[in-house]
């Protein structure tokens, strides 16, 4: 079966600065792929390239068998690639209901979006009139996740879902991720804190200094993770 997402020797970064130095990564349909690595490894940049927000300077970005480097991020989003970015990416000055109304871009009706969001996260219903910027971190992340749930993407890109959240909230969010994966959605999830995601992932990769250092089953990768983090940090970095 054709991989839903494939990065072939991708290089890229910001302006003249390359952050990724030849990334090779494959996500199969229905798979949850965890991309782990320390701060500054290039995980968020990888997601930026996958979602079309950053143009790669070399290599091939293949989505569902087609090379798509150069496709705009909005056209990829309309096709079914959904990014939940680090920092949530919600409209902080709009209410929860108004935010949910913004999630109807993929064609789902407002009532449908509301129903899906409130059934998955009942707490959002209690806060529906509250301005999103005043919600707690966990509630903001639930709102951001509602976009992914409501738009039914084929490929979901999650960036640091657990950042700054209490373990119980993280657990709840990953339960939702697990449920989404069970419906056949392919998920590439980036995490700095591995324990949160390894229970949900089918495959895991470790990224160090803009390269994939190791790919394998979550249990194998978990064993090597501490060594990779410490070893990676000890390596000299070039600027």
């Amino acid at each position, binding site marked *: 079966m054709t991989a839903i997402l494939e990065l072939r020797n991708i290089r890229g970064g910001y302006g003249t600065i390359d952050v990724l130095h030849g990334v090779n990564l494959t996500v199969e349909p229905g798979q949850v792929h965890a991309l782990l690595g320390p701060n500054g490894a290039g995980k968020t940049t990888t997601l930026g390239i996958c979602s079309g927000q950053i143009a790669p300077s070399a290599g091939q970005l293949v989505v569902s068998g087609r090379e798509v480097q150069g*496709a705009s991020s909005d056209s990829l989003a309309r096709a079914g690639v959904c990014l939940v970015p680090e920092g949530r990416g919600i409209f902080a000055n709009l209410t929860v209901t108004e935010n949910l109304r913004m999630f109807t871009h993929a064609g789902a009706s407002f009532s449908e979006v509301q129903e899906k969001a409130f059934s998955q996260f009942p707490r959002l219903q209690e806060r529906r009139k509250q301005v999103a910027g005043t919600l707690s971190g966990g509630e903001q992340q639930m709102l951001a996740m509602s976009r992914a749930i409501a738009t039914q993407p084929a490929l979901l890109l999650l960036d640091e879902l657990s950042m700054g959240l209490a373990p119980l909230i993280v657990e709840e969010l990953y339960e939702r991720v697990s449920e989404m994966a069970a419906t056949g959605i392919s998920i590439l999830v980036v995490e700095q804190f591995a324990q949160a995601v390894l229970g949900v992932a089918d495959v895991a990769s470790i990224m160090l200094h803009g390269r994939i250092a190791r790919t394998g089953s979550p249990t194998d990768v978990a064993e090597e993770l501490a060594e990779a983090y410490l070893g990676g940090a000890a390596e000299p970095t070039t600027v």
Partner: protein
Amino acid sequence: MTATETASGADELSPRLQEFQSEVDKLKVTGGRANPERAWLIVSVIGMVVGVVLTLVGWISAHGTTSPLEQRDYSVMATFGLTLAVVSTGVFVVMSMRRYFRYWLVRLIFEQREQTDRMLER
């Protein structure tokens, strides 16, 4: 891959994946490049060199002839060269600044993120 294998592969796709596949096939891929200023920088450097050469050739040639008709032609050429050199310099400065400010912006973003991480750790 044979036609039979392709057909069986397509059968395995869920309706959502089939829909996604057709949406991806419809995507307009323009081959967008990273570092879009690079091409402008190259063009502007060429423009500057050509502009200076045209100006010098026009000036030297105008000195080397006594025919007013030819002198006027060479003056036009030199003026065109000078304009090309000035415009190319302007493009070069603007594109260099765009590159520099992008780099600066990225640095600011990264520094802000690190600061946020440090605050969260505390």
